[in-house]
């Protein structure tokens, strides 16, 4: 049974392998994000190394690469993944483990790569790409006054109206506790400590439940990144959590009347992983391309097109020197970065290990809570 299934999957994948078998295949989320990667560092790397890089879209998760591996016909080389997926994929043996400082170039001033990144990697298979933020924004036309803190997001008395929050438990539990008075501590350590206990989880769930059942409040759950700015602009909600790059796109790119609040933001990351046994694994091309794409200068390039922070600290200096860095030629990008000092006065780092550990059970509790709304 197993051999036949492998054979079948192999056939189906063999058909999907196109003429570009020799190019390095990089897989990412598509849309403006992939665009920023392709223009920011993909094309320059391809040009510098003489390696063709093909960008392919996917919708996240590891199911496709796992199926490719089971079929024995891997067609992807580099994948842009969530933190949790680097851990799960590394555990499953899907990805190449890195020798970090050997595989990745140091910063221009000689700082080794492992010291140049904002935090340590969640697994041996990950190399940082961008940092993005789960912050919140409000519609300036529909909100009287200026929300400033994460507590204001939950304050329906002062700021009545519906809120849009993410459909899953991820980051919602964290902001609920931050708004309920738990100081995040360094990188959010105190929040996650509280969430380790049943009491903490219930406290967070109750806070969300209170917001959603409040006649002055109410919740809309979003699932796609494009939804939060859309819901804000249409007036369906007065405040929405979302990804800062999307808010930036609506605010600066399209001039929508929305404003971001950084208090209590959750810093999250995107990583690159290299697929073990990918078409360009043995010949070293994939690793070479990946090392170049995640170098100081290259990472800074993507921030020209989207408001996500390059993972390397040294990239910020390049952006500062080049301001206004945004592609429109008049917007300063450094203050828009989730990592900018004025934006990180009160924040937490989304903890991939916590979510890899507890994601399923918390997810079930979350859905059960939602079902009772």
């Amino acid at each position, binding site marked *: *049974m197993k051999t*036949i*299934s492998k054979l*079948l999957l192999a056939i189906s994948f063999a058909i999907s392998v196109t003429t570009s078998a020799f190019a390095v295949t990089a897989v990412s989320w598509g849309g403006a994000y992939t665009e920023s990667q392709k223009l920011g560092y993909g094309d320059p790397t391809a040009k510098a190394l003489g390696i063709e890089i093909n960008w392919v879209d996917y*919708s*996240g*998760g*590891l*199911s496709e690469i*796992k199926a490719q591996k089971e079929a024995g016909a891997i067609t992807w080389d580099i994948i842009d993944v969530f933190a*949790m997926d680097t*851990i*799960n994929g*590394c*555990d*499953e*043996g899907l990805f190449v483990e890195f020798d970090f400082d050997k595989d990745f170039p140091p910063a221009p001033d000689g700082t080794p790569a492992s010291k140049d990144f904002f935090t340590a990697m969640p697994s041996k298979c990950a190399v940082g790409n961008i940092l993005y933020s789960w912050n919140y924004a409000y519609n300036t036309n529909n909100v009287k006054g200026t929300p400033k803190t994460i507590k204001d997001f939950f304050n329906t008395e002062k700021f009545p109206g*519906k809120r849009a929050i993410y*459909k899953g438990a991820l980051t919602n539990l964290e902001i609920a506790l931050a708004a309920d008075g738990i100081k995040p501590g360094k990188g959010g350590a105190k929040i996650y400590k509280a969430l380790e206990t049943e009491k903490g989880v219930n406290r967070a769930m109750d806070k969300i439940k209170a917001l*959603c059942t409040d006649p002055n409040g109410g*919740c*809309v*759950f979003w*699932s*796609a990144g494009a939804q939060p700015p859309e819901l804000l602009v*249409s*007036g*369906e909600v007065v405040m929405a959590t979302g990804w800062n790059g999307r808010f930036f796109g609506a605010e600066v790119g399209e001039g929508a009347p929305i404003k971001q609040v950084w208090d209590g933001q959750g810093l999250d990351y995107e990583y690159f992983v290299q697929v073990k046994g990918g078409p360009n694994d043995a010949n070293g091309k994939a690793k070479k391309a990946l090392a170049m794409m995640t170098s100081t200068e290259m990472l800074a390039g993507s921030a020209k097109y989207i408001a996500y922070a390059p993972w390397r600290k040294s990239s910020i200096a390049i952006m500062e020197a080049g301001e206004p860095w945004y592609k429109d030629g008049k917007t300063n990008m450094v203050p828009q970065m989730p990592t900018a000092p004025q934006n990180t006065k009160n924040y937490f780092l989304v903890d991939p*290990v*916590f979510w*890899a*550990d*507890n*994601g*399923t*059970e*918390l*997810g*079930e*509790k979350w*859905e*059960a*809570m*939602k*079902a009772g*709304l």
Partner: protein
Amino acid sequence: MSSETNKILTTDGIPLEVSLKRSERKNKIKAFLLVAPLLLFLIITYIFPIGSMLTRSIDDKMVTEMLPKTYKAMETWDGKELPSEEVFEAFYFDFRNLVEEKREGKLSTQLNYTKNGFKSIIKKLRRKSKSFEEGNYKEQIMAVHKRWADVEYWQAIKRRAPAYTTQKYLKGMDMYKNESGEIVSVDEDRRIHRVLWLRTLEIAFFVTLFCFLMAYPIAHLLATLPMKYSNLLMICVLLPFWTSLLVRTASWMILLQQQGMVNDFFVWIGLVGDDNRPEMMFNKTGSYVAMTQILLPFMVLPLYSVMKTISPSLMRAGKSLGGTPLVAFWKVYFPLTIPGIGAGCLLVFILAIGYYITPALVGGASGTLISNQIAFHMKSTLDWSFASAMGLMLLTGVLAIYWVYNKIVGVDNIKLG
């Protein structure tokens, strides 16, 4: 006279019977060869995946093979209190082998499916176990993390001992087999699958009902109008059918949200107050409206194809025999359309039961259906055996409905067009 002379022979001397059988067999083989590609296709794309799903959902050999010594040592453990030093020692030696083979990550993933919290403590154990001293493994392992000293985690390990298991199916019903072999429900605040099954059935049922109520008059109109009007109407039915699913879903969001066009119109004509706009989106209403519209053509088309074949003279005959229009419709016309109703309802119901993008986008808090949960385990947790188990449960449900339908109406009475 011998019987041989009685046999009719063909011109080349072979008995006719044999010759006939031979040529029939030839025809049968030819016919089989003609359908062989289709049969092969069905086996490859249908029978085979279902078979592999079934094995995947009950096969639990992986963990059994990873921890052979542990399970041997656990045989004498009653599962009530923390296991003895013997079990800890066996676990340590199994674990050391796994670390050498770099397979401890897979173990952590598998155990994490049974009980959350294993991922990090196994990683921690890998780091710490390098400096373990010989002997007294119980204490050393328990010192790594407080969860290793929690009996629940050892019970979870024991639950994975059998090579074949029905645990995934039980989990799909919010139940599990505990260490003494009883089937019990999970904690109340984690019971989600039963709610989702019921919600999925409920939404599928009502969507089918609404589709039927709306499609019946439309199909009737289509079947009875003169050709030039009915063609135009047909295009109106089919046009949305050719539009992308996401576009249609998004249009409903624009129309029905609280600040949407429909609500704006209600406010403008004074039906509702500006601060009292009804919520028609991001709740069940949204799901019903969007799904009914999207699935409507699947009901209209079979109904239309059946109604087209019903001669108008039958209704006239019914009326001339003394029936009122209503009686004539109910006694004559309606029974004739049952094959179409059966086909349409089955089609819509089966499609609705597996729907997930639309309810996820427009359904709000109650938007998650069982298929969303399957997708979550396929893509996110990579627990494919659980996803397979739930997929098969869904399939069994559909087959059960088909069986009931067959008993009540009869499958011969389906007409798809």
